[in-house]
C-alpha cells in the first residue's frame, strides 16, 4: 500500500477538492492508505489555497514526498518551473490533478487520434461548460481552462505557438495555434445552473477533432446512462471515475518512477492560461516562444 497524507482542504474560492474528491478516491482505491502522520507518508495530496500551493509543494518535494497537486498546480509558470526543477533534484513525482483527460471517452479518443484514425489532425473544437456552483473569484480561465487545454494537448501532442482569447470571467474562448498549422478552439466556463446538472457539474464536455481523413466527435460526458424521473433527467457515469483514474496514474508513477501526467503538463497548461490572460487584456493574439 502507498501511504498518503492529505494536506489542506481549500482551493480557489469555496473549493474543497480534498474532501469532495481526493479523500473518497484514496479511500476507495486499493493501492492507497491514508495516514495521519506526514512523516509516514510517501505521497501528499495537496489542496491548499492557490497562493500557498507552490510553497507547500516545494516544501514537501524537498522533504522527499511525492505530490498529488490540486489544480492548478501553481499560480504562475515561474512557480510551476520551480516545482519541476525541485522535483528533478529530489527525484520525486508531482502529479497535477488534470484528471479530465483521463475520462474513458477521451482516453479512447486520444488513442484513436494518436493512432491516425482521422489522419493528420488539423483542428479541434472543444466545449467545456460547468453549470451552477460557485463562480471562481479568479475567473474561470484560471480555474477551469487548464482541463480542456490539457485534454487538447493530450489529443494532439502539439505545442501551442499562439494564443488569442475573447470573452470574460465566466465564459472564455481560447483560440490556439499549434505546430504544423493545427488549430484548436476551446469554449470554457461556467453557465447558469441547469435543472438536469448537479451544481458545478459538467453540462457540456465535448471535442470534435478534424483530420485529413476523418472526423472524431467525442462526448466526454460518456459513457453514461440517462435516468429520467418525474423530477427531471440526470445522467449516470458508467465509465471509470476520472479521479480514480488519476490515482491509477499516481500509483503507477510511484511504483515505476514515471507518471503519465507530470509537471510538464502543468507548465504547458499554465503557459497557455497566462498567454490567454495577456490576450484578453491586450485584445491581440500572443505568440509563444520556442521555449514555450
Amino acid at each position: 500500500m502507498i501511504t498518503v497524507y492529505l494536506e489542506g482542504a481549500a482551493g480557489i474560492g469555496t473549493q474543497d477538492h480534498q474532501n469532495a474528491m481526493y479523500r473518497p478516491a484514496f479511500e476507495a482505491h486499493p493501492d492507497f492508505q491514508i495516514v495521519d502522520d506526514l512523516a509516514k507518508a510517501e505521497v501528499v495530496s495537496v489542496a491548499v489555497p492557490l497562493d500557498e500551493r507552490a510553497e507547500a509543494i516545494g516544501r514537501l518535494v524537498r522533504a522527499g514526498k511525492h505530490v498529488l497537486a490540486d489544480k492548478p498546480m501553481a499560480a504562475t509558470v515561474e512557480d510551476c518551473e520551480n516545482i519541476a526543477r525541485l522535483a528533478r533534484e529530489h527525484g520525486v513525482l508531482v502529479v497535477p490533478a488534470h484528471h479530465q483527460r483521463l475520462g474513458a471517452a477521451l482516453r479512447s479518443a486520444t488513442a484513436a487520434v494518436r493512432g491516425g484514425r482521422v489522419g493528420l489532425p488539423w483542428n479541434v473544437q472543444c466545449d467545456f461548460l460547468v453549470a451552477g456552483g460557485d463562480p471562481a473569484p479568479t475567473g474561470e480561465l484560471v480555474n477551469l481552462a487548464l482541463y480542456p487545454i490539457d485534454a487538447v494537448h493530450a489529443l494532439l501532442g502539439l505545442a501551442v505557438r499562439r494564443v488569442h482569447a475573447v470573452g470574460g470571467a465566466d465564459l472564455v474562448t481560447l483560440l490556439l495555434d499549434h505546430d504544423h498549422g493545427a488549430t484548436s478552439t476551446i469554449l470554457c466556463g461556467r453557465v447558469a445552473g441547469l435543472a438536469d446538472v448537479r451544481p458545478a457539474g459538467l453540462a457540456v464536455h465535448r471535442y470534435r477533432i478534424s483530420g485529413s481523413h476523418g472526423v472524431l466527435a467525442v462526448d466526454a460526458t460518456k459513457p453514461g446512462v440517462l435516468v429520467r424521473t418525474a423530477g427531471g433527467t440526470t445522467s449516470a457515469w458508467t465509465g471509470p471515475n476520472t479521479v480514480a483514474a488519476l490515482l491509477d496514474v499516481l500509483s503507477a508513477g510511484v511504483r515505476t518512477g514515471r507518471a503519465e501526467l507530470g509537471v510538464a503538463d502543468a507548465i504547458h497548461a499554465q503557459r497557455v492560461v497566462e498567454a490567454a490572460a495577456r490576450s484578453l487584456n491586450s485584445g491581440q493574439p500572443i505568440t509563444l516562444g520556442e521555449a514555450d
Partner: protein
Amino acid sequence: MEQRSVPSRIGTLLVGAGFIAEVHAAAVTASDRAHLVGIVDTDPGRAAAFSRSHGAIPHTDDLAEALAWPDVDAVVACTPNHTHLGVGAAVAAAGKHLLVEKPLATTVADAQALAAAFAAAGRVLMAAHSHRHHGYGRTVKDAIDAGVIGSPAHVRLSILGGWIWTGWDAWAADPVASGGHALHNGVHVLDLATWWLSADPVRVYARGRHQTAAELRINDYLEMVVEYAGGEVAVLEMSRAHRPGSFGLRDLRVVGSAGMISEDWADEAAFLFTEGGTGLVAAAGVDGFGAQFESWLDTIGGAPPAMPVSDAVRAVELAVAVEESVSTGRPVELGVAA
C-alpha cells in the same frame, strides 16, 4: 404596415440558371402569389434548357430585354457574387423588386450602393440569407427573443461539409467572382448569429485553411470569431474541407444567462446503419427557400422585412473583415468601412 398595390400574382424573373436557380424556381412555383415569367442566363443554351424544363417560359441572354417584358414585377438573381451590383443596379433602374442570392455584394461599398439604389427606387431588396428562414434558424431566434435562456452570451454555430466545389474553374472557388468563402458561405452564419443575438458586432478574428488542396485560392475551412458591443461572442465555422466527402454536420449552441439552447448533430435526423457504414437521414422540415420567398412577397406587400437590407450590408462588412483577419492574422475592428 405599409400596404403596396401589388399584382395578385407577382411575375417573377429568374436571372442565372445555375444549380441554386432550381431551388428558387421551386419556391416560385410553389407559391400561389407568384408565377415564373422567364429565365435569363449569359449562356443562351443554359437559358434555353432551363426554359424547357420549366414549362417553356421565355428565355434570353439579355437582362435588359427581359426586364422590359411586360409581366415582370420582380427578379430573383442567382448569378455569381461579383455580378450582384450590376444585376441589382439594372433591376432597380427598371423599377423591379429583387431577391438576390447572398452575399448582397462582394464589397461594402457595392452593398451600400445597392441599398441606396433600391431605397431611391422605392423597391424591395432582399438578400437570400436562407438560414434565417430554415426551421432551426427561426426556432432559435424565437426562443432567444422569448427570453427562455436569459441574455444570450455565446453562440457556437458550425456548418461543416465534406463536398468540395465542382472544379478548379468553379466561380465559387474564384476569389474575385465569389469574394472569398467568407462572403460566399460565411455570410450565412455571420448573419444568423448576429440576428440571433440582436447585437452590434465590433470585432472579428478569423482563421482559415486551404485544407483540401494547397492550391485552392479561397479558404475551404473558416473559423470566424465575432465580438459584440455587449460582450457577446460568436464562434462560427463554415467548411467544405471536412472528410469524408459525405460528411455533413450542423452544430449549434447558444449559452445565455439563464440556460442554453443546443442542437447536436443527430437532433434533426435519424440514424441509418448500413453495410456502407453509419449515416443520417435528415427529418423533413420547413422549406427555408419557400419560406424566404413568401417572406419577400410579404415585404413587397408592405410587411416589415425579415431580412432588412441593412443587415445584408452588415453581413458583407463582417465577411470582408473575416477575409482581412485571415490574411493578417490579427483581429479587425468593425465600423471603419461603414
